[in-house]
């Protein structure tokens, strides 16, 4: 039997520490330490011996490491000393290296913070791996809505039906978004984002409740759950539970308080209102399979594969909604894919494209690599200075591994210095970056010690990448040759350096091409004739019943102002007509033609207000009483599609009604330029005309706006006069592209900047090294321009090569990007030539500074020494 020996033992933590630090085989060293401890315990008391033992242990560690680091630390001290001396002696080179690396590291750190945030979306839900979102695909060929057949919008009864039908669906919920709606509590009015949600919502997702009952917070009608933030806005420090908030003329009782919704949630909202209330608000209640405004989530039981359920969905849809879902297929999307892998129409989630993440990471990494290359190039270029040192070290007995370690160490040391600079820079740049990405990223090292590890690893990695080639190169020095002052490895080094410079310039040229193309496309969009006039149009979305009811008298009042040209109300502005129906018509050959047609309901002034050109027939007019009932104006594409030679008077059916074509308008871009123009119709069917547009004169705009505002406010609406200019709204559609462009501009600037830093260093080094040669050439009669040519000739060859590499790559990526647009600029060869030329000129300029200095120097000075 083994007796457990009851001896005083040091703390478990110190034992663990000993085992970790001293590579301990068979716990021999641990035994030694325990023995020391036991002796201490025999002499002193328990507490004192513990303290003394810790003192002993701590004293042991540096002694151990001191010896562990090369030869009792002496060599290490020497390495540091030499590294410092080199840093000081070559201030210029060091500055170039550190600046380049620092900029590279800044890019990397920003990229890291951004990517980490983007990847963290929805990671806080306890059941995260079991939650799926339902989406559907319209399966009729060639009729993709807005170019995209995928939707997340579903019918309201879908969620309960899924739960009822399948035992593996443990829970299901549906939500509907409320964007910027008015909430009222006594005197306070706030516009907030919210969701219609049922009680299951709180159970499936883990948005923690601070107050309230999870089981029934949203189970009753007229209940509302608000976030802490909203509760503070409304009620300050008072207890909000049970208070009344009015929304859409209904009094809701606050039944729960949520923690604030984290920024990395794909759903953002500040309040939840009972889904049951929708029963009375929707025309067909909550059992209508034709409704299409809810998002459905399900929670699967543990261990179920969602793909199995997905396979059963066709049968399910056939059973519950054979007509409504006849043209659709259902799918499930895992919760954690929602943020980065969504591609849906009417998506209510906060989404980003995974390709943006890839591209951003790639570009940031490339810039870091360009900075590392600078280090490699400068270190090898100056190697002949260090070669003697290496030779000497070898003579005294250094082995190759030690020299490699020395140079790697030096690179790591420099990378460490660069990191310090980079961290200071990030402090300044992060707010700018945040306003650009609209995130709230923080670099809080104290709060987040994990990041220290990342930065530490980064420094080691950067040091090793940039130090690897110089270390191998320099450690290969033959001491005998070097010390005999024979020329040293210049050929091989030069070639490698040129290859690296070529790489730097290729990437720079690629980035320049991308920048030019993106900006070219943006300019194209801006200048493109989109078929209607978007300048000097003020728009307002009508949200108040009181305005809606009095719209005719408002229009009359506005029309009397001298600076108002035209007023129109409609259900869609011409920049975004998104309503679509299936229509049928009879073509010239008397055949039935089916066509999916986008359509908008407009008034008599619509065409004039937006300057849309009428090609044939006439505009809607109050003189024709039937216009409001059955007249239709088509666009050119629709006429072409239907094959009508004389469209006026032809008939068309949609929305279960008959229409007669009275006019044809010139094609205008009623959707973003990403999409081709498709058949479109304008009619005067009754619909909510909540878009008010006013064309004003370019003079005295502020006064005109003030007049509009005054007229609007006369009716005491609850919503403020929240107007927009049509051209601003138009530009906002291309916000993503604008961001894309500015990102490329910054990155290509950085890439070129770092590459030029390196080139400048190389050039000044070459010039310095050839001082004597240049002196002799000048004495023998060479001209300044001749010497300038001599020094810059090598460069042009490599920049040319860089162009040849860069062009196909840039062409490939930009061609792919432009495919996103149905209307786009061509990729002309001039863009490439211009980018290449720009890169070449910048490179030449960088080099010329040093070359001219060297060429203009007086040979007497350069030849005097020695």
């Amino acid at each position, binding site marked *: 039997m083994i007796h457990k020996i009851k001896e005083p033992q040091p703390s478990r933590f110190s034992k663990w520490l000993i085992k970790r630090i001293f590579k301990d085989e068979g716990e021999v060293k641990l035994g030694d330490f325990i023995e020391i401890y036991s002796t201490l315990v025999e002499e002193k008391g328990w507490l004192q011996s513990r303290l003394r033992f810790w003192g002993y242990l701590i004293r042991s560690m540096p002694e151990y490491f001191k*010896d562990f680091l090369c030869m009792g630390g002496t060599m290490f001290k020497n390495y540091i000393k030499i590294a410092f001396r080199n840093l000081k002696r070559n201030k210029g080179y060091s500055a170039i290296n550190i600046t380049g690396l620092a900029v590279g590291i800044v890019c990397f750190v920003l990229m890291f913070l951004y990517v980490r945030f983007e990847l963290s979306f929805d990671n806080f839900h306890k059941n995260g791996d079991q939650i799926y979102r339902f989406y559907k695909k319209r399966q009729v060929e060639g009729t993709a809505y807005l170019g995209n057949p995928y939707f997340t919008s579903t019918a309201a009864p879908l969620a309960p039906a899924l739960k009822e039908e399948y035992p593996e669906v443990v829970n299901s919920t549906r939500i509907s978004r409320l964007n910027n709606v008015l909430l009222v509590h006594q005197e306070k009015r706030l516009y907030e984002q919210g969701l219609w949600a049922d009680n299951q919502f709180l159970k499936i997702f883990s948005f923690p409740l601070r107050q309230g009952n999870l089981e029934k917070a949203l189970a009753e009608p007229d209940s509302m759950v608000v976030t802490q933030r909203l509760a503070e806005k409304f009620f300050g420090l008072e207890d909000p539970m049970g208070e009344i908030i009015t929304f859409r003329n209904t009094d809701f009782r606050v039944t729960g308080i949520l923690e604030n919704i984290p920024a990395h949630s794909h759903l953002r909202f500040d309040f939840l209102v009972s889904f049951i209330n929708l029963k009375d608000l929707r025309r067909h209640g909550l059992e209508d399979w034709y409704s299409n405004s809810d998002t459905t989530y399900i929670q699967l039981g543990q261990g179920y594969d969602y793909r199995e359920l997905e396979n059963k969905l066709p049968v399910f849809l056939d059973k519950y909604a054979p007509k409504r879902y006849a043209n659709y297929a259902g799918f499930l999307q895992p919760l954690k894919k929602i943020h980065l892998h969504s591609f849906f129409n009417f998506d209510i989630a906060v989404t980003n494209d995974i390709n943006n993440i890839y591209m951003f990471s790639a570009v940031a990494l490339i810039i870091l690599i360009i900075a590392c290359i600078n280090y490699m190039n400068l270190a090898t270029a100056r190697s002949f200075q260090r070669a003697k040192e290496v030779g000497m070290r070898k003579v005294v007995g250094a082995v190759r591994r030690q020299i490699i370690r020395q140079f790697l160490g030096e690179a790591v040391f420099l990378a460490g210095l660069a990191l310090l600079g980079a961290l200071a820079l990030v402090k300044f740049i992060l707010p700018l970056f945040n306003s650009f990405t609209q995130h709230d990223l923080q670099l809080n090292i104290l709060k987040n010690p994990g990041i220290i590890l990342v930065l530490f690893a980064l420094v080691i990695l950067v040091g090793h990448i940039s130090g690897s080639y110089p270390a191998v190169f320099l450690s290969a020095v033959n001491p005998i040759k070097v010390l005999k002052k024979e020329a040293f490895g210049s050929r091989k080094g030069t070639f490698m350096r040129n290859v690296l410079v070529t790489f730097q310039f290729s990437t720079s040229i690629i980035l320049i091409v991308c920048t030019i193309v993106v900006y070219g496309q943006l300019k194209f969009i801006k200048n493109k004739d989109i078929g209607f006039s978007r300048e000097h149009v003020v728009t307002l979305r009508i949200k108040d019943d009181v305005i809606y009811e009095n719209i005719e008298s408002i229009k009359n009042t506005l029309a009397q102002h001298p600076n108002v040209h035209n007023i129109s109300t409609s259900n869609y502005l011409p920049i975004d007509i998104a309503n679509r129906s299936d229509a049928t018509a009879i073509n010239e050959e008397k055949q039935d033609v089916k066509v999916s047609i986008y359509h908008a309901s407009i008034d008599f002034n619509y065409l004039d207000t937006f300057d849309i050109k009428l090609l044939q027939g006439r505009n809607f007019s109050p003189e024709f009483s039937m216009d409001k009932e059955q007249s239709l104006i088509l666009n050119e594409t629709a006429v072409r599609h239907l094959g009508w030679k004389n469209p006026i008077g032809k008939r068309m059916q949609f929305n279960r009604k008959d229409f007669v074509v009275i006019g044809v308008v010139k094609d205008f871009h009623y959707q973003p330029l990403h999409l081709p123009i498709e058949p479109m119709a304008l009619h005067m069917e009754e619909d909510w005309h909540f878009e008010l547009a006013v064309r004003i004169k370019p003079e005295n705009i502020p006064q005109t706006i003030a007049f509009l505002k005054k007229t609007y406010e006369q009716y005491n609406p609850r919503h403020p006069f929240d107007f927009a200019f049509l051209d601003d709204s138009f530009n906002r559609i291309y916000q993503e592209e604008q961001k894309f462009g500015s990102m490329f501009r910054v990155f290509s600037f950085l890439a070129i900047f770092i590459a030029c830093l390196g080139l400048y260093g190389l050039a000044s080094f070459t010039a310095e090294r050839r001082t004597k040669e240049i002196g002799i050439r000048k004495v023998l009669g060479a001209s300044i321009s001749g010497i300038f040519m001599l020094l810059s000739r090598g460069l042009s060859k490599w920049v040319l090569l860089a162009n040849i590499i860069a062009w196909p790559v840039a062409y490939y990526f930009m061609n792919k990007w432009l495919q996103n647009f149905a209307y786009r600029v061509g990729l002309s060869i001039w863009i490439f030539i211009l980018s290449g030329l720009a890169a070449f000129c910048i490179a030449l300029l960088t080099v010329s500074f040093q070359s001219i200095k060297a060429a203009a120097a007086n040979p007497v000075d350069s030849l005097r020494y020695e």
Partner: protein
Amino acid sequence: MGMLSRTDEMILLAVWRLGDNAYGVTIAEMLTQTSGKKWVLGAVYVPLERLEKKKYLSSILGKSTRKRGGRSKRLYKLTKDGLDVLIETKSREQSIWANITISSLEKGYDT
């Protein structure tokens, strides 16, 4: 045969002095006694391992005791090479210091 560093020399001597009982704790104690400077365990492991690698020392696992919490000792012994290098060091030392006494050193002091 190469020259020994001061630390290596002291450690080899301590191992020799301790005979059959040379392991981490005793070596550190012996060094503290003979050099007049406090030696901790951490300071002896690296030179011990280095000397073993150079084949000046050999080691075996010894018995465990209650005091060590049941862990065994690593007992060190001089090898033939170790002994030779010590002898060589001693004789070199003697030739370097031959005929020099403290008083003779003091006489050479330049005032």
